[in-house]
């Protein structure tokens, strides 16, 4: 299989770890070799969190080269802008919810807030497909990651991986009430 790169970006506390693991395990359940790596220096302190996944038979380092991501998943508008600027390849796909956690310079009034529309507009030069998710009300903000996972599944954004593979991944990673709640959000966005 041709290699396929997924760049996931957000802010510490948004559940990138679970999203990345669910994707990695989903890809594995589909029988595709895959590698992942998290970069989360001071993640818990509201810093940037990036997780990268690479799949295919001929991938070696888990780190994606610049502008080589087939898929950029952002959990937050400023971060998806950052991720797209660094990683998105020509003709790649971008998925993100319309969620803003303002970075410090925005809160201090030193930098304007970036909007979802600006991101979509800017990415047209790359011929990118942008999918903006309307989240509505979720039982818990920390389940926004499941909305992204659902959207990846619904739009079949990772070649060869389908809904049942993501379901199996969630079964590996969660149990009980937490599994039920996360599955409900995932199912909602996967349908």
């Amino acid at each position: 299989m041709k290699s396929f790169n997924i760049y996931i970006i957000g802010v510490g506390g948004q559940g990138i770890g679970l999203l990345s693991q669910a994707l990695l395990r989903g890809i594995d359940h589909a029988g595709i070799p895959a590698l992942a790596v998290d970069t989360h220096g001071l993640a818990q302190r509201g810093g940037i969190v990036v997780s990268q996944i690479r799949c295919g038979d001929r991938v070696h380092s888990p780190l994606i080269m610049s502008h080589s991501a087939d898929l950029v998943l952002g959990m937050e508008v400023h971060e998806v802008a950052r991720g797209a600027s660094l990683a998105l390849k020509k003709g790649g796909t971008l998925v993100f919810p319309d969620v803003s956690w303002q970075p410090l310079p925005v809160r201090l009034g030193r930098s304007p807030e970036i909007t979802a529309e600006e991101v979509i507009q800017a990415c047209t030069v790359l011929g990118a497909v942008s999918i903006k998710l309307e989240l509505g009300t979720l039982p818990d903000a920390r389940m926004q990651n499941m909305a992204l996972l659902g959207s990846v599944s619904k739009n079949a954004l990772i070649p060869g991986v389908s809904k049942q593979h993501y379901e199996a991944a969630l079964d590996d990673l969660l149990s009980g009430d937490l599994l039920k709640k996360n599955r409900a959000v995932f199912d909602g966005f996967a349908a």
Partner: protein
Amino acid sequence: MKKINDILMTKDPFEEILMGNEAVVRAMVETGTRVIASYPGSPTPEIAAAILSIPEDRRPFYFEFSVNEKVATEVAFGAALNGNLSCAFFKSVGLNVALDSFVQLSLMTITGGMVVVVGDDPGANSSQNEQDNRNVYQMARVAVLEPASPQEAYEYYKHAAALAKKEQTVVVLRLTTHVCHARQKIRFGARSKPVPYQTGFSRANGPYIALTTMALDMKRNAIQKLRRAGQYIQQTGLNREISSQNSRGKGIITSGLTFLSILDVLEVSLYRPDILKLGAVNPLDEERVLAFLKAHDEVLVLEELDDILELRVKALAYDHGLKTKLTGKTRDEDFVGEYTPDKTREKLAAVWPDLVIPSPALPALSLAVPPRPAQMCPGCGHRSAFFAIKKALEKEDVTVADIGCHTLGYMPPYEMGEILLCMGSSAGMASGLSLFNHQKRVVAFLGDSTFFHAGLPGLINTIFNRHNITLILMENGTTAMTGHQDHAGSVIPVENLLKGLGVESILSCDTYNQSKLTELVRTSLAVKGISVVIARHPCMLKFTRQKRKQPGFVQTHVDIDQDICTQTRDCVERFGCPTFTRKPDGTVFTHPDLCIGDGSCRQTCPEKAIVFGKEAK
């Protein structure tokens, strides 16, 4: 659900997706490692998290968080002298703390064998520097294995353990951040039955006292052991060659994650140099390297951070009068940062311009993305502390930082803690700054885990030499920055310790009581000599996580009453909780995803416009 503890304790061989750090724990289980000690620090804390996931009564080894890395090394060493295979693990700069003990280890007959796992951090992702600890291992005369992937991290730990046991010595497993944190499917072996804990220390196994002429004999012994380690490395094939049909007489010597970066670049190159991938970076397999040099016209030594391998390879080529063209680091930037596939491609293209296919430049996106520096969490007691302490200080007063979440106080809007070296250094630096300094007052910050780790000697020096500083102990009851590990403060209250040390001026309060804290700091600053303020509040990230797990938990939050708000913006610009969100028209709101409803912000609003949300009523 696949539970990590069940995975780690599986009896028979299996395959599973794990992180490098977790794979190392499985290797500990398989090798019968019996005693493990650590002090937390990225990139290795998930080793501890995986260990702690196994309930203590099922854990096939003893584990402790020691007070610092030096003590962790000593505990593991002591246990290994009893005949137990032991391990200490910590982050890159942890080796600096451990060094005084660490450099002695190769002189000793470590009957049980000992593995030291050190997580270096190229790129300084979560460290105060990106030091290359390979510089130390030659001095310490220890064998060092360096995996490139989680699969190898698992395998190499097993090799390190086998070699350490065989030679009754210490072996280092050198991990780097993105090997620790990479995930892949790994093939694991069977678990061994735990052997009983050993208590067989005998000085007859020694010598263990490296004094006078003994130190030299012991060094001779260490040199021989390292030579034998070299033989083990040769026999086990830890260094391997990846040859190509199309190398054009070129070769690359490399190790670790850089090896994988090279493979990625060569996937789309015009030809493929041969690669000598070193699994052992000390001792250098000279025979292997020589043969590789002789077989190529041009060899590039491509290594992350310092030029350790390069200098030795060059010396070897010189000694043997080889004509092979050797290249290594040529620019300052070659010493800086992680050798990602991007950086590796750039370097390879600089050395061999005909090798790499240039990729077409993409149009840059017209997006100016503001940086996102790390922040103290919503509700963090340190934020209230900085907000309150700032009010007690004059502009010219000097504030000295230490390492921990509170280091983030250096950023706007607080801008306190202007100098930082390393863990536990604040009291010492502040003492030096206070000498002959009658105009400016000097304030040092120190976290509670760090207080025990390396802060005590500096503080005792301050008392002993009668320096004039105010120490603010940021007591949140945990080692917060690295993920909430327990520390000695849970057994030894800091206040008792300070009293025992004879500190006369000790004041304390909860940091949420901001006006009181301002007062206490003012009082403290007026004291001549050492004065201590304990600024106390539990880590709210830890606290909130625990609370959420309780039945019937209701998430509360605060709102800004827009009818009362006159946009003084103290909340967003001076208190600076990430919850406060500024709209383009200047109005301020609280963010429902971020607010934890602690209410510590309410006292910062001069208009009293911050009110509890309806759930709180």
